[in-house]
């Protein structure tokens, strides 16, 4: 019995090895409080009581800069208007599970009010070419009865899915974001 050739005309011999894994875990208290507020039409963050004084959104119940525990008492209500401080335009690669086909933008938004920065947000009804740093945006909330935590609980990248559909330009003049440096992490 001779050994099979390692390669065939169409490349190396391949054996499929499909893997499917399911995980479930209760959301931590910080995310639970954040999710409750999201259903209620509010964005809450958490202010560090240590030296950095930064506002984190969503809350984590600790500060990664000062390395101290934070609690619900440190939660703060945040604005749902803000300024785009960074963005990237993603050209989608067609991998298994990919749903996007056209380039799309994901933006970081510095929220008005006490602070807080939301990452990887969607800008609605706006050509990718118009997305820019300094643009003023406002949250577009899902109708109250339609909000749910399924997307938040899916462990994906969005921290506002199921509550906020995305963000719309307000038409206000662009903001000079150099004023916002050091307000986020």
């Amino acid at each position, binding site marked *: 019995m001779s050994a099979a050739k390692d390669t065939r005309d169409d490349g190396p011999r391949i*054996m499929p090895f499909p893997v499917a*894994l*399911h*995980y479930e*875990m*209760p959301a931590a208290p910080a995310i639970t409080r954040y999710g409750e507020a999201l259903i209620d039409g509010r964005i809450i963050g958490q202010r560090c009581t240590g030296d950095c004084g930064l506002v984190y959104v969503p809350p984590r119940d*600790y500060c990664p800069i000062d*390395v101290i525990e934070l609690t619900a008492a440190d939660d703060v209500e945040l604005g749902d208007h803000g300024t785009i401080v960074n963005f990237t335009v993603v050209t989608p690669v067609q991998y298994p599970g990919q749903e996007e086909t056209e380039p799309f933008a994901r933006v970081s938004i510095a929220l008005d009010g006490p602070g807080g920065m939301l990452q990887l947000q969607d800008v609605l009804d706006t050509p990718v070419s118009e997305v820019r740093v300094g643009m003023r945006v406002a949250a577009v909330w899902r109708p109250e009865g339609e909000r749910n935590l399924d997307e938040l609980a899916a462990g994906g990248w969005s921290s506002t899915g199921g509550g906020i559909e995305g963000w719309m330009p307000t038409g206000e003049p662009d903001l000079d974001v150099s004023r916002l440096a050091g307000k986020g992490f």
Partner: protein
Amino acid sequence: MVDVAIVGYGQVPSVRCTEITETQMVLDVTQQALRMAGVDRHDIGFTVSGSCDYLAGQAFAFVQTIEAIGAWPPISESHVEMDGAWAMYEGWTRLQEGDVDLVLVYCHGRSSPGTPWQVWPLQLDPYHLAPLGLDPWSLAALQARALLDAGVASERDFAEVVARNRANAVDNEYAQVSGKFDVDALLAEPYVRNPLRRHDLPPISDGAAAVVLASRDRAAALAERPVWITGIDHRIDIHQPGMRDLTRSESTTRAAQAAGLADRPVQVAELSAPFSPQEVILRDALALDGSVEINPSGGALAANPVMVTGLVRVVEAARQVRERGRDRVLAHATAGQALQQNLVCILEGP
């Protein structure tokens, strides 16, 4: 050789399912260890952690836990996809270079979120074993039966291991499963994987642990009773279960030899035996006689936070030296299935 000691440690009670994040658990245990050591996180020269993304259900999951140790300004940090005991081995190795004298080691693991029968076979040979969905209970049972067939142990021996460990765990605030159990009552329980019964299997646990290592002069300055690591080594056996003698743990014996176990007897041994028959194998591999106290913590049958179990054995062994005045103790950690890979370290008081 640079002398290295454990000068601080921390752990959290192992639970069936924690309500907080792994990062929060890491914050807790690392703060405990740093406080005990009397050092600030800014004094740490190198940090190394152990965990497994497949347990957490997210690629690079371990990166988030760096938030718990303060990675700003940037720190020197490493990670192993292994039990924290191996992270400690890397930390010990780092100290041998002599340019840093304080290392923080931490580990975390949640077995509760995943579906065990999906996750565990992925640890095995992808061609010959994983496609069969060979699960850890079944593999441990094949090992147990080999022990019975060889006449090396009996089912009663397995039950006695369970009873002793669970009884020891009663006094351990960090243990998850404990209690006084009658051996005959245990033997009356049905098999889950003949010859293993439910109590012969480890609990599903979430947990975390941390240690602070210091080298020579720093250790002596920091701790009244530093816990010196006088020997540490790890070895690995053949992966294929049908190609090695499952009734013996040659890699444990060799690791112990290299760690200098034979130099002087140990008083206590904390062994990572998640399945009761494995404690029989390890006692034999380490030639531990009746004078050695085994698993005063309750061992891995009382709590098995995978990726943490081994470092918890180190912490519990260190407690024996620092808190209970023991002179020379052994801690053992295992990785892979059916005791494939084993780490032994010897800890001594001043």
